[in-house]
């Protein structure tokens, strides 16, 4: 299982669940700093026909991180082969406020807030 873990956040792909989990506090210093996480997301999406990104324990994501998610969504949208969905939490404000914006890029994107 590919995993990135620091004091502040973790990111990993669980192939059995076809799921990428991002958790913790992500406020890296610009879009370039998010490349390892972007690579993890893209590698996961290549290995599955239906990929879920579980964000419900991701308490903080800065605008660079939101931009990284938008880039990932467009890559998947353009590849057509993978079905993509996001799972978030109604208890995390940035997800309640900003996650829906990804549907502007991919209207059939499935976003579930639990």
């Amino acid at each position, binding site marked *: 299982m590919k995993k990135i873990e620091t004091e*502040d956040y973790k990111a990993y792909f669980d192939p059995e669940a076809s799921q990428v989990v991002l958790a913790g*506090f992500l*406020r890296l*210093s*610009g879009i370039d700093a998010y490349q390892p996480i972007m690579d993890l997301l893209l590698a996961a999406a290549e290995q599955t026909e239906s990929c879920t990104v579980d964000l419900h324990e991701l308490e*903080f994501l*800065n*605008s*660079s991180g*939101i*931009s990284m998610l*938008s*880039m990932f*969504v*467009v890559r998947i949208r353009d590849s057509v082969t993978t079905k993509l969905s996001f799972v978030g*939490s*109604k*208890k*995390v*404000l*940035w997800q*309640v*406020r*900003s996650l*829906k*914006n990804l549907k*502007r*890029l991919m209207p059939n994107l499935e976003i579930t807030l639990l």
Partner: protein
Amino acid sequence: MSQSSEQFGRFVEPSGNSKEYLTLHFSPSASARQERWQNYGLSADFLGDYFSNFFPGNQISDHELSQKDTIKSAVSFIANELLENSIKYSYDCAQFPITLSLYLYEERLIFRSVNCAEIAVAARFKQFIRDLLAAPDIDVLFTQQFEKTAAGSGESCMGLLTMICDYGVELSWKFQPIDRGKNTIQVDALAYLDLTKFDNQLFSN
């Protein structure tokens, strides 16, 4: 090159009747920028924790978040974005620290970030502000910038647009020449968060 100050948006300096305020100073040359990045996030979280204490912790109607949790998260996000912007665009000169202030009033929170920037950098930022203020529909501008960012086309100012569109923040700026440095200018940003709009902005989907 203009030597007078320029204002964009409704720039009203915070008055002295704030119920509570805090100012944090960051010295740009104290250590490597990358090493300090984590501290900036912690500072934004501190402001969120501190100011959320003035708000009730009970849930509002059928929403999952209390007013206290909402303030904590909103303050942390907005403070972090203002601070990140100040740091990204500031000119590293020790005599001009970056400051971030937060003022609490009965009906609003006012964030203020101050930093100095190179004039050429500030000029590019001013152009974005002009485009922002002239946009007939901010929602359309948001989508256009979001598409550009998603396509990987450079600077996007998505942080500012997210504050406006997702958190209901009103932004304004003042650019002032600095006597001591001909190539630098002081950038003073204000972000107003209207507390009376919680129900219809911060919680609406």
